C-alpha cells in the first residue's frame, strides 16, 4: 500500500491542488487554532522567554559537540545490550531494518510515529518484502488507510474532519460507525490491540536520546509507542542523528518545552525511557533492541550557516502558526517535513535542485521564528537559502529582472523616469485608478486581485508642487 503524495513537481503546483479542496484549509484552521490556543493557555504567565533561551542553549551546546555525545551514547547503549547502527544514508538504514526483519522471519511489523522512518520510506520497503506494516498512532493509521503521507509532523491527519475519518473507517472496514470521536478511537484501538500482540517487530521513532545513560526516550499520548516498543520480541528505533541530549538534566528542560509547544500539554500521557533490551531479571520487554542513527544529509549541514536547523525538536509549532501551511497542510511541501521547518530542512537534505522552490513558500512573516521553542531563526534561514538559490539556480529572466530593476532604482533620476514611463505604459490597461488585467509578469497579480495604477502625481511630484 504505497502512499502517494499530492501530485505536482513544485510547491505551487501541489498548493494549487490542495487549495482546490477548501475542506483542508477549513479543517486545518480550526484544529491548528485549538492547538495554539491550548499552548497559549498553558504558557500564560510563565517565563516563556527564559524557557526558550534554556532550550536554545541546550540544543546549541549539544549540536556543537554532536560527535562526542553520539559516541558516548552509543558506547553506553551497546554496553547495555542495545545494537546501534549508524546509517549514512536512508538506503543503509532501510537495508539494516530489512535484514533484521528477514532474520526474524517477520510477517507483521507494528509502527509507532516516526518522521525519520517516513523520511526514508521505510514502510514501503518492508511491504515490498511482503511484510505487513501497520501504523499504530491513530493519526498515522488514518493516513495509512487513506493511502496518504502524514500532513503534519505531530498530528498526521489534522486536515481531516471527524466525518471524513468516519467515512474512511466505514469504507475500509465495512463498518457503520458514527462520527463520535470516542467511538472511532475505540474501534481503532480494538483493531490495533490484536496486532500488537501478533507483531514480530515494533518500529518507533525517538524523541531524545540521552548520552550519559545510552537511553532513548519516546513521548506519546496514545500509548502506542510503549506497546510498539515493549510487546513485540524485537524493537527497532529510528532516530535522526541530531536527536540527542547530554543527560537527564537537559531532558527535564526539553520535555516540557516539547509537549507544551506541540500540544499545549505540561506532560504527555505516556513517556518512556528505554535503556536496553529485556534483561534476564525483567518480566517483559523485547529480546532485541536496535537503534538506527540516521545521518541522511544531516552531518553535511553541521559546518554551514544553517547548523541551528539541527536544533529542531520536531514539536510542529512552526507548522501550527504558519499562515501558508494553514492553507494547504504539509502535503504541499513534497516531503514529510512541511511548513517552515520543512522549507528549510528539505532543501538542505535533498539539495536545491530538487527543493529549491521551498524557501520561497513563505511570506517571511516571521511567526515561525517567534514561536520556535529553541529559537531557530527559521525565516532568516529561508532568506539565506533564497540567497543560495539566487546564486545557484535562479534563471536568467529573474536575474535580469532584479538587475535591471535595481539599476533603474539606484538613481533618483532613472527612478523618476520609471514612474513617468509606467504611467504611459499602464494607460491601455488602466480602468480608473486600477488595473484589472495586466500583462505578464503582473498578470500573476491581477489573476486574483486588482492592481493600483501609478498615481497621476507621485508623492515627490506633489511635494515639489508644494515647494513651488
Amino acid at each position, binding site marked *: 500500500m504505497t502512499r502517494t503524495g499530492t501530485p505536482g513537481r513544485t510547491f505551487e503546483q501541489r498548493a494549487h491542488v490542495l487549495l482546490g479542496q477548501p475542506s483542508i484549509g477549513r479543517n486545518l484552521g480550526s484544529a491548528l487554532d485549538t492547538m495554539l490556543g491550548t499552548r497559549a493557555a498553558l504558557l500564560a504567565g510563565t517565563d516563556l522567554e527564559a524557557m526558550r533561551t534554556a532550550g536554545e542553549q541546550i540544543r546549541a551546546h549539544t549540536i556543537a559537540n554532536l560527535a562526542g555525545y553520539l559516541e558516548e551514547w552509543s558506547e553506553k547503549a551497546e554496553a547495555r545490550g542495545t545494537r546501534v547502527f549508524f546509517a549514512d544514508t536512508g538506503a543503509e538504514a532501510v537495508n539494516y531494518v530489512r535484514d533484521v526483519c528477514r532474520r526474524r522471519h517477520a510477517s507483521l511489523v507494528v509502527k509507532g510515529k516516526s518522521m525519520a522512518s517516513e523520511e526514508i520510506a521505510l514502510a514501503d520497503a518492508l511491504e515490498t518484502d511482503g511484510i505487513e506494516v501497520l501504523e499504530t498512532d491513530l493519526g498515522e493509521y488514518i493516513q495509512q488507510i487513506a493511502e496518504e503521507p502524514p500532513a503534519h509532523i505531530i498530528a498526521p491527519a489534522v486536515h481531516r474532519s471527524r466525518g471524513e475519518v468516519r467515512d474512511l473507517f466505514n469504507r475500509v472496514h465495512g463498518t457503520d460507525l458514527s462520527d463520535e470521536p470516542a467511538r472511532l478511537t475505540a474501534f481503532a484501538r480494538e483493531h490495533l490491540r490484536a496486532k500488537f500482540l501478533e507483531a514480530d517487530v515494533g518500529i518507533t521513532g525517538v524523541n531524545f536520546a540521552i548520552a550519559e545513560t545510552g537511553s532513548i526516550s519516546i513521548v506519546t499520548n496514545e500509548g502506542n509507542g510503549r506497546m510498539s516498543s515493549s510487546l513485540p520480541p524485537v524493537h527497532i528505533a529510528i532516530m535522526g542523528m541530531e536527536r540527542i541530549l547530554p543527560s537527564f538534566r537537559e531532558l527535564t528542560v526539553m520535555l516540557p518545552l516539547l509537549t507544551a509547544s506541540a500540544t499545549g500539554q505540561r506532560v504527555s500521557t505516556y513517556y518512556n525511557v528505554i535503556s536496553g533490551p529485556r534483561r534476564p531479571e525483567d518480566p517483559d520487554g523485547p529480546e532485541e533492541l536496535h537503534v538506527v542513527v540516521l545521518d541522511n544529509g544531516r552531518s553535511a549541514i553541521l559546518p554551514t550557516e544553517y547548523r541551528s536547523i539541527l536544533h529542531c525538536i520536531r514539536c510542529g509549532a512552526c507548522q501550527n502558526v504558519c499562515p501558508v501551511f494553514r492553507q494547504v497542510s504539509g502535503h504541499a511541501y513534497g516531503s514529510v517535513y512541511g511548513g517552515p521547518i520543512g522549507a528549510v530542512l528539505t532543501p538542505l537534505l535533498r539539495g536545491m535542485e530538487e527543493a529549491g522552490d521551498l524557501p520561497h513558500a*513563505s511570506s517571511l512573516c516571521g511567526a515561525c521564528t517567534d514561536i520556535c521553542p529553541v529559537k531557530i531563526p527559521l525565516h532568516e534561514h529561508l532568506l539565506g537559502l533564497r540567497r543560495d538559490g539566487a546564486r545557484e539556480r535562479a534563471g536568467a529572466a529573474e536575474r535580469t529582472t532584479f538587475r535591471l530593476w*535595481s539599476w533603474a532604482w539606484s538613481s533618483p533620476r532613472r*527612478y523618476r523616469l520609471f514612474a513617468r514611463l509606467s504611467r504611459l505604459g499602464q494607460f491601455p490597461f488602466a480602468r480608473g485608478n*486600477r488595473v484589472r488585467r495586466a500583462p505578464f509578469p503582473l498578470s500573476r497579480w491581477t489573476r486574483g486581485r486588482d492592481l493600483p495604477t501609478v498615481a497621476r502625481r*507621485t508623492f515627490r511630484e*506633489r511635494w515639489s508642487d508644494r515647494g513651488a
Partner: protein
Amino acid sequence: MINADRRPERVALFVTCLVDLLYPEVGEATVSLLEEAGVAVDFPVGQTCCGQPPFNSGFVEDARRMGRTLLDAFEDAEAVVSPSGSCTAMVRSHFPHLFEGTPDEERARGLTSKTYELSEFLVDVCGATSQGSLDARVTFHDSCHGLRELGLTGQGRALLEEVDGLELVEMARPDACCGFGGTFSVRLPEMADAMADDKLDQTAATEADVLVAGDSGCLMHLVGRASRRGDRARPVHLAVLLAEARGLR
C-alpha cells in the same frame, strides 16, 4: 534606541516606493500628522526604495544598490520617519548585516539608529497629541514586520483609541499574515489570495467599516482582493484614517 525624552525638531520623511508611486495620499497624511505633532518635515528627493524586493528574493548586491539611495538621502537627517513597518524593519533589522563589510557599513548603522516607523514615532517619541473624531467601526491588522521585527504591538491601536467615536474591534487573528509578503504575492499568487481571503473573512466577521494597517504593501494586496470579492470593509492606511479623523485632509 528610541529616545522618548527628546523629540527632534525636524525629521526626514522616508516615504517608501509604494507610497510615492501608488499611494501619495498616505505620504501627505504622514506629513500632516508629523507637522501637527510639532515636527518639521523634510523630503530628501534622492531616496527611492529600501531594496526589499531583491533582498527577499536573495539578490543581495541588487538590494544594496537600491538601499544605498537611502544611505545617501538620509545622511544628514537627525531622524527618519516612514509610514511602513516593513520598510522601517528592512533598515533597522537588515541594513546592518546587508552592508556589513562594505564601505557603507558605518552609514548603514547610522541610519538604522535613527529610523522610526510612523506610529512608533508619534506614540513613543512625540507622545500622543490631539484626538480628532470619526464615526467608524475599525479593525486593525498587525503587519508582520512592524509587529515581529520592530515589536510594534500597541502604538497603532493607541492612536486609534484616542479618536472620538471610533470603535476598535479585534479580529480573530490580527497578527496573522495577510499574504502579501512582497514578491511572494507574485511568486505564489493563488496562495497569497487564499491568505488574503482568510484576513478579509476575519475582517468581515467583525462587521467593521474599515480595515486599518500600517503598511501599504498589505493594503495594496487587501484592497486588490477585496475589490474582486466585493467586501464591505474599506482597507485604509493608519495615517490616512488618523488624518481624516483630525480633519487634516
